[in-house]
Every structure is written in C-alpha cells, then in structure tokens.
C-alpha cells in the first residue's frame, strides 16, 4: 500500500513539465560548467539573472495573457513606448528620479494595455488580430509623434544609470572582483511572487484560470469574463512598462526601434514553461524556468561555436517543439 502511494506520488511529480525543465537546466548547467568552470560562479549567475530580468517580467505578462486563453504580441511596443516616453519626459522636465520614470512608464503601459483590454473584452476581437493592430498603432504613433531619435548613454538621465548599477547586496570574491545581486533580479522575483499570489489566492486569479479553461463555463459560474480579460491586458501593460524601464537601465541606451520584433523570444519561454495557448494551464514557476532555459541557450550558443545567425532558428525550433509536446500531452491526458 505504501509503495503504491509512493509510486503515484512519483508519477505525479514526473507528469509535471516543470520537473523536466528543471532537469534540463541542471544537466545543461553541469555540461556547460564542465566546459567552462567559471559558468557556475555566483558572479556569473547574478549577471545572467540581471540581464534576463526584463525579459522575465515581459514573459510573466505574456504568461497571464496566454493563461486567459488569448495572446498579446503588442507588449514589446508597450514596453518601448513606456520607456521612451518616460526618458523623454524626464529629459524635458529635468526631474531626475527613477520612481517618476516608473510611474510614467507604468501609466503609459496600463493605458495602452487598457486599449487592448477594451478591444478584446468589449468588442470581442480575436486577440491576435487586435494586438497585431495595436502593435503597429502604438509603435507607429511613438515613432511619428514622439520621435525617432535615439538617446545615448551621455544624454540619458543619471537616475537610470544609477538604478542599473544598484545592487541589493555586494560580495567580494576571493579574486577581489566585486559582484552583487542586482535590484532587477529582486524586482523580477517580487513580480513573479505577486503574480503567483494573485493567480493562486484571489478570486480574480482563479477567474483567469477559469476563463482560460472554458469561457462558457466560467460565464455560467457567474464570473465577469469581460472584466477579468480587461484586467489581464492592463496587468500585462503595467508589467511591460516596468520591463521597459529595466531594459533601458540595463543597456543605458534608449532607442525607440528596439525590442519591437523580439516578441517570439519572450513568447518562447512562456510556451516552453508548459503554458498552453488554449488557456487554463500553466504556472509561474514554469515560466521562470522557461526564461532560465532560453537565457542559458542564448548565452551558450556562442560558447558551443554557433554564430548568432542561428539564434532565430533555435528560438523557433524551441517554440515548435514545446507547442507540439504540450499539445501531445494534453491529447494523451484526454485519452484521445
């Protein structure tokens, strides 16, 4: 009896895609560490987590949208709009405060997200078409109205550079090199935790899972589907705004043509993390692990000796394979 229970438990653990992702990460890390021992140093891991934070925050936004059964491809345009407008407002007003920048970027993000939400929840436009339209509207308006001029590191307000260099704590390695846990990583973790709490413990979060699973059933159960969908797109907008500021603080350069066109590299980790585009299935942990795998892959392609030309090919391959796997799994679980 005991062994039987244990078997079921083990089976349950291995039926979760997160376990496989974790295994892949561990095996892959050991492999890379074997080739290059400095890979597993705390400094390198901190660095990787710092540079992937902005992608991770965008991915969590996309994750919530996918969970509700939709798709958002306008988030890159929202992120770059929030970031570029914030930088320009700060430059014009002379206020040099990172919180002000976050405020502006999030305001832009939430209002653009609200437009998406309105189109999807009220006008019931298919999400892909709605966000494809808004992607072009947002980005086009940004370039025509706000401008196309890139702002380089020297012109960029100091608060961004200071924010980019902020560490929560700093350690000094045995070789005297100082490294620390970036505030970006902490923000990513906080946002991931917050999203997990919303999804797990609030009526709203359960509603997102419910409408992703079956809209009709959710509506009959008394959930306000339009309001939940509206919230989902606003939330993705806010996260895009935050990610935009982190992105500019990381690269210390504000170019309004950046980010747009990299949608797939953010959607890839979400899908890889086991989130189903048909909605209702997926976890925050899976998304984080997906982000980790994509970051590892991108960073080690050059290490393996493949040029950056291959990056797009591999991103596509990962999406195609993980979509196929999750579709196959869902069919198997339904017994068809």
């Amino acid at each position, binding site marked *: 009896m005991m062994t039987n229970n244990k078997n079921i438990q083990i089976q349950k653990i291995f039926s979760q895609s997160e376990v496989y992702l974790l295994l892949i990460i561990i095996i892959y890390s050991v492999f890379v560490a074997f080739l290059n021992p400095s890979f597993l140093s705390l400094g390198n891991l901190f660095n990787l987590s710092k540079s992937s934070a902005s992608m991770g925050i965008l991915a969590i936004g996309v994750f919530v949208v996918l969970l509700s059964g939709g*798709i958002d491809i306008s988030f890159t345009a929202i992120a770059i709009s929030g970031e570029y407008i914030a930088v320009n407002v700060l430059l014009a007003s002379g206020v040099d405060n990172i919180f002000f920048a976050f405020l502006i970027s999030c305001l832009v993000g939430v209002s653009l997200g609200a437009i998406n939400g309105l*189109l999807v929840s009220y*006008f*019931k*436009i*298919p999400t*892909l*078409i*709605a966000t*494809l*339209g*808004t*992607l*072009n*509207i947002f*980005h*086009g*308006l940004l*370039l*025509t109205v706000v401008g*196309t001029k890139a702002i380089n590191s020297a012109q960029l307000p100091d608060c961004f550079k200071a924010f980019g260099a902020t560490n929560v704590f700093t350690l000094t390695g045995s070789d005297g090199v100082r490294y620390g846990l970036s505030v970006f990583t902490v923000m990513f973790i906080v946002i991931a935790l917050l999203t997990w709490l919303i999804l797990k413990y609030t009526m709203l979060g359960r509603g997102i899972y419910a409408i992703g699973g079956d809209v009709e059933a959710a509506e009959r159960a008394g959930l306000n589907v339009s309001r939940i969908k509206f919230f989902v797109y606003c939330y993705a907008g806010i996260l895009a705004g935050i990610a935009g500021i982190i992105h500019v603080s990381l690269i210390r350069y504000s170019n309004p043509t950046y980010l747009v066109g990299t949608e*797939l590299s953010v*959607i890839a980790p979400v*899908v890889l993390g086991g989130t189903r*585009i*048909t909605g209702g299935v997926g976890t925050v942990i899976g998304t984080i692990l997906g982000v980790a795998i994509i970051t590892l892959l991108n960073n080690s392609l050059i290490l393996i000796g493949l040029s950056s*030309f*291959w*990056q*797009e*090919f*591999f*991103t*596509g*391959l*990962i*999406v*195609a394979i993980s*979509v*196929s796997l999750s*579709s*196959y799994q869902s*069919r198997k679980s339904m017994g068809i």
Partner: protein
Amino acid sequence: MVGAFVVMSVFLPGKFLTLSNFQSMSSQIPEFGLLAIAIMLAMLTGGIDLSVISIANLAGVGAALILTGSLFPQLGGGYGEILVIIVAILFALVISLLCGLVNGFLIAYIEAPAILATLGTMSIFSGIAIVITRGYGITGFPESFLFIGNGTIFSIPMPLIIFIFCVLIMALILNKTSFGFNLYMLGSNPIASRFSGINNRGILVRTYMLSGFYAGLASIIMISRVNSIRPGYGSAYLLQAILVCVLGGVDPSGGYGNISGLVIGIIMLQILQSGFNILAFSPFSKNVIWGLMLILVMVLNFYSSSFSKRPKKLKIQ
C-alpha cells in the same frame, strides 16, 4: 472601395489618375495579394498562417541560390538560361510546399494551435534563410527571369496576369471542388465535419500546403521584381495581408469569406497605399493607419454581427 477611389481621384487628380500609377499599383498588388490569399486559406479553416512571409523568404532564397549558380552550377553551363529559371521556380515551389507540409503536420496531426505553430515555424524558416545567406542579400538574376516581375504584355504588367490567373484557380478550387467545400465545412464546424465523414486532418494538411504554395508564388514575383532577396524582406506585408483578409470579409474564426471579397480588399488597400505614397507619408504613419483600419473593421464587424444576431435570440426566447 469606390469611396476610396473617388477621394483619391478628387484630391490628387494629376498624380493618381495616370497610367504609370496604375501600372505601378498593379505590379505591387500581386505580391501581397498572393500572400493574403495564403493567409485567407488558413483563416477559412479557423486557423491562421503567420509563417507565409518566412516561407516566401526561404523559397526566394532557394530560387536565388539556383539563379545565381551557387547551387547546381552545372545547370547553367550546358542547358541554358531557361532551364535554370524553370528549375529555380520549381525548387522555390517545392520548398514552399514542404514548409506548408510542416505547418500542416504540426496543426493537423500534433494538433498544435495554429497561432503558435506558425509563429514557431515563422522563426524557423526565416532562421534557415538567415543562416544560409548570413544575413546578406543575394542579387543579380538572369535578365529573362526579371521579365516575370517587370515585364508587360500589351502594357499589362506580367505579375498582374499571373495574379489574375492564380485568383481564378483559387476561386475554382474553393467553389467548384469537393476540397473547397470540405474546407468551408471544416472551418465553420470541425466536429460536425468530422462526423459527416470528412477527413479533417487531410484537409488541414492540404490547406496549409496550398497556403505555402501561394507564398512560394508570391516569392517568385517578389524576387523577380526587385532583382534581389534578403531575409526579412516583406515583413511589413504580414499586417497588410491580414488587414486585406479582414477587409475582404474573411471571418478569422473560420468558415466565412470568399475570394471576390478578398480581391476587393486588396484593390482598396492598394489604392490607399499608392495615395499615401503620393502624399509622402512615412512608413511609421502608414503602419498606424493600417493598424487603425484593422481594428476599425473588426469593431464594425462586431457591431454588424451583434445586430444581425439579435432577432435570432428573441426567437429562441
């Protein structure tokens, strides 16, 4: 469409109503027209094909490699230019059919959602094109190949003739064959079509292959018109092609839409496009307008469908 035509003619009489403008318009229509047909096919089944432009790019690169003699250089030596061109075109079409087969397999047999499957293959196909060309363009095709994209017969541009031919074929396929009938059935209700004995998977695979084939045709016209191919070329066509489908009355959830509506949508978009070119709009502001139009049409569709559905609801009650 008539409205757009009249507005453009009234405001820009000297520039809009000229033969050269109509000729340039009709040589631009075929490229994204064929891509729009490719996307329409996928939309009719209730899916979408985001990879058409990548397929066109990859097929174009394949054709370009043969045309410039990088692949099978022995062809050019003994057999002459015409054979090289024919082989190149066939090669491009075979590539596009294979790409379509991959899409169809993922969507029909693995049952992957069409949006994500084609989003993934979009990256794969254009990734392969980038790896082959190392990101550079390929230029310099044989003179007689350029006739496909630039030549005229009785001052009718060659691409337009090809396009009309392709449209007629597609109209025949959709309206007169059992495949076309089954395609519409599948799009409006896949479960019902399965229970009425239609091989859903077979139809889906053939649909995506046909979609890939039309993307391949578009790529031949495209590379011949501009005498070069570069990965990423024509990426702006995706928004336009989807816009044309929606303008032409194709229902993105499947089952509804016909080729004549699509053609009207294509002509309307092209009239606006060339009007904007004459007015020297920036590409960014054009994107804003296309995006706005896409949303606006969808919103109008929402209102018209909610009005037409209302009486039915009353009857049920």
